[in-house]
C-alpha cells in the first residue's frame, strides 16, 4: 500500500468508513498476526491480541493524526499489548509456582514449524522461537515485516542507535542458533574490498 492510499484510507476510517477499514485490515491483518503469533508462540493468544489491536485502532481512529504511519502505529499497539500480556503471564506463573501448580510448556512442534514449508524455514522458525522476546521482536519487525530500524525503534520505544545495536546482537544470536541446529552455513560471507 503506497503512502497516498494509506493517508486517504486513514482519513476515511477517521470518518467512520467501514470499507476503508476493511482495506486497511486486509493490508495489515496477516502481518500483525504473524508478528504476534511468533512473539507469543501461541495461536489463541495471538488472535486475542490481534483483536484487541484492531479494536484499539477503530476506537482511537478519530484521535489519530492525519499523517499517522499506520504500519508502525499498529505494530506499536500490538507489541505493547504483547508486553502487557507477558507481564500478566509472569504474575500468573509466579502465583502458580508458589502453589506448586506450574507445568512445563509443551515441547511439541509449533504451528509455524509446520507452516514453514522449507527445511530452512523450519530451522529459522525454531531458531527464532529459541531467542528472547527482545531479540525476536527486533528480527520480526525489521527482518520479517520490513520496518526500517528507525521505525522499529519507535515501535519498541528505544533510540535508533539502540535499535541498531539490538538488531546486530539479535542477528548474531540467530545466526549462532542456526549454526547450532545445523552446521551447514545459512549465511555466506562475501568479500568487501578495502
Amino acid at each position: 500500500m503506497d503512502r497516498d492510499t494509506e493517508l486517504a484510507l486513514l482519513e476515511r476510517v477517521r470518518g467512520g468508513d467501514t470499507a476503508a477499514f476493511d482495506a486497511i485490515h486486509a493490508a495489515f491483518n496477516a502481518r500483525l498476526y504473524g508478528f504476534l503469533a511468533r512473539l507469543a508462540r501461541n495461536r489463541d493468544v495471538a488472535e486475542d491480541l490481534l483483536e484487541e489491536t484492531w479494536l484499539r485502532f477503530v476506537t482511537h481512529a478519530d484521535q489519530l493524526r492525519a499523517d499517522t504511519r499506520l504500519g508502525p502505529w499498529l505494530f506499536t499497539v500490538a507489541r505493547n499489548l504483547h508486553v502487557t500480556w507477558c507481564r500478566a503471564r509472569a504474575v500468573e506463573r509466579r502465583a502458580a509456582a508458589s502453589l506448586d501448580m506450574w507445568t512445563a510448556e509443551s515441547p511439541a512442534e509449533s504451528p509455524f514449524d509446520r507452516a514453514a514449508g522449507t527445511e530452512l524455514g523450519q530451522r529459522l522458525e525454531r531458531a527464532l522461537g529459541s531467542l528472547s522476546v527482545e531479540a525476536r521482536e527486533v528480527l520480526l519487525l525489521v527482518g520479517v515485516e520490513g520496518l526500517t530500524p528507525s521505525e522499529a525503534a519507535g515501535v519498541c520505544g528505544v533510540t535508533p542507535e539502540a535499535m541498531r545495536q539490538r538488531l546486530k546482537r539479535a542477528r548474531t544470536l540467530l545466526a549462532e542458533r542456526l549454526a547450532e541446529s545445523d552446521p551447514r552455513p545459512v549465511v555466506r560471507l562475501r568479500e568487501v574490498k578495502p
Partner: protein
Amino acid sequence: MTVAPRDELMETLADLSGPAPRAAQDARVRARCHAVLKGVGRPGPFARKARWALDRVLPAAVLIYGVVVVVEGLKLAGLL
C-alpha cells in the same frame, strides 16, 4: 581485506511465511470493528464536546487552586 556478513539471513527472514489467522475469527473481529466505527457505544458529538471542554477546564481549575494555596501559605507565613 575485510570480510563482512552478507545479509542473506535477513533476506531469508523476509521471505518467511507464517500461517494465516482463522477466517471465522477475522470475520468476527471485522464485525466488531465495523460496529465501533458505525458509532455503536461511541460518544455522540455533545459528549465529545463536553469531554473536550472538561479536559481543558480541569487543568485550569487545578492550576488556580494551586496558586491560591501558595498565596494563602505565604500569607500565613507572614510573607505577604
